[in-house]
């Protein structure tokens, strides 16, 4: 009995020391200090489609969300597990073709075929990537980049899965707002879900796999196992985006394997702030609309696009979120003193 009591007290002290956030629950002002950024983000994303001037721009928001999922997936793998993945195109393509088959062959409605394609697609992607999990750094990146190229050639050469025409006649969403908010809710769900995940004990293991895999092995844990879990989650996000995209365009084809899906998420992560999870999502919200705006400039937009990216890398290499978070917390210190 006595021992029980003492243990609990000790635990509390431990929490006080190790959790910077506890004091924040002491007043409404401090509570709002903590929740405000989250609230702004959630409300901002939720009302984004409502303030868009046209259906075209609402469609852009949906595309942004797909890239946001891909950026989240990249950030999770690169900065929490140590796998640099260029697999965006691979995930999008596999998710797209899977939902296309589920929808056109089995007649499943989008709200059923998308979740199914997410899981089945993630299993397929994970199985493909399983042999290269021991590879590190650039080798893993190269393999993830090669798969979409390989699949394009296979589909072309064997004329399977609709060949060069792709699979047409995929059902769209019945309701425009369901279509719009489905993907927005998914982004929010995965954003906060992944943030939660990396702060759990398993998140510590992920980071340990990245920083010090020998110590993880010495702790009796299989590195490949944890990498597999992470790759499954990351490819699920990509496949979800790909499946959604297929229903959005009512088509899945070779351009689902476009390189943009692999490259833009990296740029979004650089701009938003690597390792922050929120940053890459914000990065997607900045980069994708800009690249749409620049569409009017034709091929010249690539130049602008490159310049913006260059500027970010040169002048703000830490990314918007890292910078913003620091400023926000510095402000807080000033209030306290």
């Amino acid at each position: 009995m006595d021992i029980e009591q003492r243990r609990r007290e000790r635990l509390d002290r431990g929490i006080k020391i190790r959790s910077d956030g506890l004091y924040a629950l002491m007043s409404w002002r401090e509570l709002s200090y903590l929740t405000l950024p989250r609230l702004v983000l959630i409300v901002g994303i939720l009302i984004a489609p409502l303030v868009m001037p046209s259906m075209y721009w609402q469609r852009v928001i949906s595309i942004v969300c797909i890239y946001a999922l891909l950026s989240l997936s990249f950030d999770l793998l690169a900065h929490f597990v140590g796998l640099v993945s260029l697999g965006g195109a691979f995930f999008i393509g596999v998710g797209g073709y899977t939902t296309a088959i589920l929808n056109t062959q089995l007649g499943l409605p989008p709200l059923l075929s998308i979740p199914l394609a997410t899981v089945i697609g993630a299993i397929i992607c994970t199985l493909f990537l399983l042999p290269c999990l021991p590879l590190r750094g650039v080798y893993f990146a190269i393999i993830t980049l090669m798969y979409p190229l390989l699949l394009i050639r296979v589909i072309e050469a064997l004329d399977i899965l609709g060949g060069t025409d792709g699979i047409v006649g995929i059902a769209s969403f019945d309701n425009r707002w369901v279509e719009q908010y489905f993907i927005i809710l998914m982004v929010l769900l995965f954003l906060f879900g992944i943030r939660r995940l990396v702060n759990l004990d398993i998140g510590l293991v992920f980071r340990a796999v990245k920083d010090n895999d020998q110590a993880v092995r010495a702790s009796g844990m299989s590195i490949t196992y944890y990498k597999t879990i992470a790759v499954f989650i990351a490819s699920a996000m990509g496949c979800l985006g790909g499946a959604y995209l297929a229903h959005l365009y009512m088509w899945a084809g070779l351009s689902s394997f476009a390189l943009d899906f692999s490259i833009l998420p990296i740029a979004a992560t650089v701009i938003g702030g690597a390792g922050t999870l929120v940053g890459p999502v914000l990065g997607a919200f900045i980069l994708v609309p800009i690249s749409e705006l620049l569409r009017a400039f034709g091929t010249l937009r690539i130049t602008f696009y490159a310049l913006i990216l260059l500027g970010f890398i040169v002048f703000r290499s830490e990314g918007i979120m890292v910078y913003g978070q620091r400023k926000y917390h510095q402000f807080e210190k000033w209030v306290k003193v």
Partner: protein
Amino acid sequence: MNDQPILQVQDVTKTFGGIMALNRVSFDLHEGEILGIIGPNGSGKTTLVNCITGFINLTRGKVFFRGKNITGKAAHKIADMGVTRTFQIMRPYYSLPAYKNLVIPLFSPRAKRTGGWRGGGKLGDRNTVSIDILEEMGFERESFVPYKMASTLPTGYLKRLELARCLSLRPEIILCDEVFSGLSMSEIASMVPLIERLQMEGITLIMIEHRLRELFRVANRVMVLNFGEKLIEGTPVEVMADEKVKEAYFGSEKVEEVTGYA
């Protein structure tokens, strides 16, 4: 009473390219004992630990744990069976506080199965259990040390953290690769009782050390390696009395200082 050795190492040979790092090394380890391994730098001690724990594949030979052949098994599977090791060059998670370093091994399948060291069967809060383990390893609970980043900890604490990582798996064997090296005399003096207590708790230990005086105090048997070969094995007294060893170590505590072998 079971006479079977807990660990049997048979003719273990390891070559790196042309270098023979280990040449037909055999020994038995009995449950509950402390086996000291000494030898000059480069004599293959760390390589032996790596071979036993599966961190490198051995060229020839066999390793048995409780009669089961564990040769060539994956490192994490061997650790999962309870054969753990410390690293001579410490490998903490530098970006994490000391107590979070232990949350990771406490998350392992073995710790979940065994409840971890002192876990009492159930692992409710890994943070609490890890601080309990750290306290046993000499991290003062009331101080800030358990909450400090591993990157700011001095060598002495990092060595203890290495041991604590093994302990959090509730191990059967710990292979300690030079846990005393780099420590001051007083730090070593404070760690010797720790080692003795681990033995009393029923953990079997292999200790690789250069500090002969402290090693001979705790070790039941000592094995001497030289150029990858086993020179002699016996009680500390026997080993001290041996001519070859005497020649190498007489009047000196540190192998590095011995001109003949370094």
